[in-house]
């Protein structure tokens, strides 16, 4: 019973924390660029404002345009139940392993692209085609990178991977883990629309990807999509933090270990957000045609990760 309560608490925590993470990255980036920056809770205000605003929909849009925000949001909420954010093992571990997580995330991307195509605006179509290009290259890499860890743990179950790394701390420094971490970090940047691939700070630019697809959205639909994007960022951060450096994740369901789990999650998220902010300050956006090259770097890293964890077992 407590397990199910914990699942709900974990999903709720992820949903509530996610906009703050986006705000944190923005704030750190602003400070690094010598700007004062909006406060960390600014995204909450934006979401609140969007939820109160009316929805304007193009007359060319079909039912798909209305359904997509809910599908996108529902898919990331489902993933928050399956990813080890606070504790392992969870009762829903048996329902979905890493493949389910990867394809649920892909489902959201797929519907977002359909919604981008639906109203027939040129920007939406461009964004959709780019997002599919990125997703087609990034999705196998996510699966492959986590699969490298799964080989070590002998299970594709995310909870078991975390538990296994905790019992064998040396594994966290094995080449398989390092390569997989590099691969997953690059994919995190690509999948969540961060800098070398897509610029999250821009709203009208010819090279945008995520923003181009959601250009037609407004009001609560836009709020749902933005919120889902924030949760996706948090999901990737917690995958990076908890799969590769699992210490802090609660193995027993006592209040003390859970408090520690929340604290360690916050620390990991802050560190990763800092890394992303520094990276986004240091580098410029890649030309679109170099994005597949970056993603093939991460694919090769993931391939090496699987090889070395397979051969060095």
């Amino acid at each position, binding site marked *: 019973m407590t397990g199910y309560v914990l699942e709900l608490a974990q999903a709720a925590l992820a949903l509530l924390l996610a906009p703050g993470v986006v705000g944190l990255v923005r704030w750190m980036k602003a400070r690094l660029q010598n700007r004062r920056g909006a406060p960390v809770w600014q995204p909450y205000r934006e979401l609140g404002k969007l939820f109160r605003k009316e929805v304007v929909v193009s007359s060319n849009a079909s039912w798909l345009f209305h359904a997509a925000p809910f599908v996108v949001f529902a898919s990331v909420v489902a993933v928050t139940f399956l990813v080890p954010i606070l504790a392992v093992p969870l009762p829903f571990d048996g329902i979905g392993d890493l493949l389910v997580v990867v394809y649920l995330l892909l489902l959201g991307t797929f519907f977002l692209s359909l919604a981008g195509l639906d109203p027939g605006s040129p920007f939406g179509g461009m964004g959709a085609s780019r997002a599919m290009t990125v997703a087609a290259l990034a999705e196998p890499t996510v699966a492959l990178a986590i699969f490298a860890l799964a080989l070590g743990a002998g299970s594709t179950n995310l909870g078991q991977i975390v538990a296994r790394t905790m019992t064998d701390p040396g594994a966290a*420094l094995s*080449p398989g883990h*390092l*390569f997989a971490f590099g691969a997953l970090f690059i994919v995190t940047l690509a999948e969540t629309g961060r800098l070398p691939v897509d610029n999250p700070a821009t709203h009208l630019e010819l090279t945008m990807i995520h923003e181009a697809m959601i250009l037609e959205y407004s009001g609560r639909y836009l709020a749902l999509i933005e919120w889902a994007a924030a949760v996706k960022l948090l999901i990737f951060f917690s995958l990076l933090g908890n799969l590769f450096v699992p210490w802090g994740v609660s193995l027993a369901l006592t209040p003390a270990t859970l408090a520690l789990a929340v604290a360690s999650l916050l620390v990991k998220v802050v560190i990763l957000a800092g890394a992303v902010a520094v990276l986004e300050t240091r580098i410029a956006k890649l030309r679109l045609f170099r994005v597949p090259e970056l993603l*093939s770097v991460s*694919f*090769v890293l993931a*391939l090496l990760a699987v090889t*070395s964890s397979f*051969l060095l077992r």
Partner: protein
Amino acid sequence: MDSLFSQLCVLGSSLVLIFGLILLWRRGVTAYVTAFTWQSIVLAAVTVTVAYFGHDPELYWVAGALVLLKVVVIPRLLRQMERRFAAERELEPYVNTATSLVISGLLVLFGYAITRPLVALSQLPTRAGMPLAMGLVLVSLFVVISRKKALTQVVGFLMLENGITLLAVLGTYGIPLIVELGVFLDVLLGFLVMQIFIYQIHETFESIDVEQLNRLRH
């Protein structure tokens, strides 16, 4: 103790290999020089680790010579050349970036395959890093044959040498100091000769693109 030792060695070898892969992805000469410098630093760190855990004081000298040659002298000479040829970026290699990355991934796989008997035979705690060193050797060789600019090929050659040194350090705890010093001298001389070649190529063709050498046939 042994497990920490082998973990550190594998970690170092992985980093050395990753710095080698940067050569395939980046295009600017500056990035190559930086990658090579860091690779040499990590290589020296691996050597020191092996010296400490393997109780082989001679390796400290090897690490010192390595730092002097590959972190100080050669990068400085490379930067000198870079100032002159900075505009010559590796824009059109024979094999494009995405393909060469996949090929190098396969080459590392191949490296794992061919070092398997070696790893199985060896009893040393450093053996797990050997496939990565062999992978670096193969990847650098691939860089040398697939890139057009002479300067990139030189960096590829230097990384090849790093790979061989890593293989020697991990496989046998280093070769005798006197041989090692001879190798270092060879590398330095080889590098100087190549530098003169590059200047000559640039003098003759106003470019360091080795494609141009085909014109010599006519």
